[in-house]
């Protein structure tokens, strides 16, 4: 191994011209910002969709501005039809799960920070990296295009269960080209994620600077590294699943469509396929996917916390990292817990239940590490830390819901209720978003060379934190009353008493959503008018703080760094840079 030829890595000259510099750039920092911008746009689109849905649920007859213009058929006069509600729901899930939660914390921050964290000048494969982003971008355009085709977006949910998603337009509105575009969009997202994951892994293993042993890797980088492995295996299965789905739709095959199906009294020409095959393939990806979303959040929060509590995490890098590895590994053997009531063998349900319960152990270890690291700390309440604390609280609140959904007996009551919706919004939605906000406030000075406004940041935090609890704790708890998810109107006898709770959630959602414009304003204003950021505004120790803000094209201005310490050299006011040869203060 030692004699292999190692040549200059990623030594491309600084780009010239606007297009090469800002659009088709191979610079990982530009690509990272491109990803974050895409996610930001996607997040506001997704949020607008959720606003429309929530308003419709609480006040079905209210005319929603712009909606009637966007889709005269789906929302005549701004009052949405049941099918359009489901379309918005499908696109909300798709856009949020893929283009926001998977893209921002992993591809966005990972692209910008990972090469810097390892002391490299760029990713291992810069051109591949650029194509990852542009493939993602095209995927996003395809997803958005579904709003503007006559048929409208698909309505089969982000899980696209067959045969509803597979039989074509006979299954209802939105199941024509909308569903085809959806399949292609997700297939493109898969390809982009696979290329991105490959790049992350090779960069982490291969481009580390001198002295940067794996044990000295910053914790965010650990999160991305482990996440890349999970992505690499999970998206490799979603890709063929999407292809087979599109084949069923366009090629006339019957992978997921059984025989004897009748729509409008017409017998369908398919036979022999299995909807359960789709569920197995989808959830083999789908469960790791929620960890793909949350593992970078684990990493980012573990990375940020020591800076602001001024001490290393309990157990050093090992305990938290090994928990992440355990979570990532176990995530591949638990997918069946999504299928407890789907007609899978009840014995298989038990087989899937046990590892699902056991995955709580590494998750709880991670939570304990974060919480008990606060003991005896010197906490500095900057906005990034507030978001990290919010992350911990939300992750606990959502995580405990897992106990109910991991057991087939309790899940058989709670399955498909709003309990599930609240649970996954807490665990993967909000936790990942809060970690993303933490990362955004933390790294903004490094990315743009200016500080964000702390007052606005804190205001944004308080409204968002209380707001999301009002929305999603209510949602989670109404699940016990049996509130069914994916209903476009509350018409059942037992749903009607839940209307006041739904109105409360809607008001909270409108306010919480509105607070996100504070964030947007803060980001844009600070980008141009914010206080100039010093190189190391937070007194942190990792490599990104050992260069200018923003970093030069080659990240370290041609310096060859040597790493002497782990990433958590904090002792109160004292701290030691990873690259400083001084003696350790925290013994890491």
């Amino acid at each position: 191994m030692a004699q292999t030829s190692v040549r200059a890595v990623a030594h491309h000259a600084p780009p010239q011209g606007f297009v090469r510099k800002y659009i088709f750039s191979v610079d990982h920092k530009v690509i990272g910002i491109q990803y974050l911008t895409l996610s930001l746009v996607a997040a506001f689109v997704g949020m607008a969709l959720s606003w429309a849905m929530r308003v419709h649920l609480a006040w079905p007859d209210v005319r929603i501005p712009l909606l009637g213009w966007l889709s005269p058929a789906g929302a005549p006069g701004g009052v949405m039809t049941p099918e359009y509600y489901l379309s918005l729901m499908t696109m909300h899930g798709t856009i949020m799960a893929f283009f926001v939660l998977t893209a921002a914390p992993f591809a966005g921050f990972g692209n910008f920070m990972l090469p810097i964290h390892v002391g490299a000048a760029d990713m291992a494969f810069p051109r591949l990296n650029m194509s990852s982003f542009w493939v993602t971008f095209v995927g996003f355009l395809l997803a958005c295009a579904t709003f503007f085709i006559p048929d409208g977006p698909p309505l089969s949910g982000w899980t696209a269960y067959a045969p509803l998603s597979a039989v074509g337009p006979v299954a209802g509105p939105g199941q024509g080209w909308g569903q085809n575009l959806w399949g292609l969009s997700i297939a493109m997202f898969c390809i982009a994620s696979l290329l991105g994951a490959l790049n992350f892994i090779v960069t982490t293993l291969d481009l580390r600077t001198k002295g940067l042993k794996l044990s000295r890797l910053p914790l965010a980088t650990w999160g991305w590294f482990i996440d890349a492995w999970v992505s690499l295996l999970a998206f490799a299965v979603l890709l063929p699943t999407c292809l087979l789905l599109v084949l069923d739709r366009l090629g006339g095959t019957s992978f997921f469509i059984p025989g004897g199906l009748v729509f409008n009294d017409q017998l369908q020409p398919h036979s022999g396929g299995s909807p359960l095959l789709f569920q197995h393939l989808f959830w083999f990806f789908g469960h790791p996917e929620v960890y793909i979303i949350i593992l970078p959040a684990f990493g980012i929060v573990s990375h940020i916390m020591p800076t602001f509590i001024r001490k290393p995490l309990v157990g050093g890098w090992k305990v938290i990292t090994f928990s992440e590895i355990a979570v990532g590994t176990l995530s591949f053997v638990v997918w069946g817990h999504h299928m407890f009531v789907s007609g899978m063998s009840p014995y298989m349900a038990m087989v899937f239940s046990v590892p699902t319960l056991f995955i709580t152990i590494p998750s709880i270890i991670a939570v304990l590490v974060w919480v008990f690291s606060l003991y005896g700390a010197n906490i500095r309440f900057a906005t990034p830390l507030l978001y990290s604390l919010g992350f911990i609280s939300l992750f606990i609140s959502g995580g405990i819901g897992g106990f109910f959904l991991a057991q087939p007996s309790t899940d058989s009551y709670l399955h498909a209720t709003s309990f599930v919706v609240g649970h996954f919004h807490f665990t993967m939605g909000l936790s990942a978003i809060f970690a993303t906000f933490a990362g955004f406030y933390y790294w903004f000075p490094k990315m743009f060379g200016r500080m964000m406004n702390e007052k606005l940041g804190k205001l944004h935090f308080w409204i968002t934190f209380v707001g999301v609890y009002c929305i999603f704790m209510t949602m989670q708890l109404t699940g016990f009353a049996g509130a069914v998810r994916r209903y476009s109107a509350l018409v059942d006898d037992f749903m009607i008493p839940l209307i006041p709770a739904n109105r409360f959630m809607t008001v909270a959602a409108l306010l919480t959503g509105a607070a996100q414009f504070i964030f947007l304003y803060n980001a844009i204003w600070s980008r141009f008018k914010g206080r100039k950021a010093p190189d190391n505004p937070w007194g942190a120790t990792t490599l990104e703080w050992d260069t200018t803000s923003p970093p030069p094209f080659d990240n370290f201005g041609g310096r060859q760094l040597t790493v002497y310490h782990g990433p958590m050299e904090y002792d109160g006011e004292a701290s030691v840079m990873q690259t400083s040869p001084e003696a350790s203060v925290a013994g890491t």
Partner: protein
Amino acid sequence: MNQSELMIALSELAVATEHEIQMEESPYGIDKKKLGMWIFIVSDACTFGAFLFAYGYMRIGAPVWGTPFGFSSIMNGMVMTAVLLSSSLTMLAAVRAAQSGTKALAEKWLAVTMILGAVFAALHLREWFKLFGEGWRLFYNPTGGAQQFGATFFSVTGLHLTHVVSGIIALAFITRGYNQGHYDESHVETAGLYWHFVDLVWMFVFPLMYLMNAR
């Protein structure tokens, strides 16, 4: 050695040792192309795995499957297998030649590999067209058995064929670049990894899709 040191030592095993190489760029560097190719292979194996899983799932679930391949098809498959296996050998020879610096020989072996790949693809397409001629389609089984035979056969072998064809194109690029001096033996070696992987996949596809469907 206490436990924590042991863990660190274990984690270090995966990468090159720290102090041996004092390279300018990365002290941990093994060839990034090769590492990237290995990781691609891991991922691609999962993709093939999903296709084969779907095939198995369909097949087990089908009351009547239908096995269309007669003697001639199996023989054709045997020849295809022999051709592809030989191409792995010639690829190996190309990598050896490139590593020992005999450039002209390496190019020759690369050319032979591409020709063998093309022969494989041609034989494969002949098989496909024969099946089309018999009435097989993605969604239709002329023997009246499960219609999934066409779907699984054409999608699995189609995916493999796509890999072979893209492999030939990639080899052509690499050979040209190698000839012109843009690429070196490490590129040839990385392409070889891919080629062997495609060959390995065929060693699963052939028994599962052909031998198990022999009449």
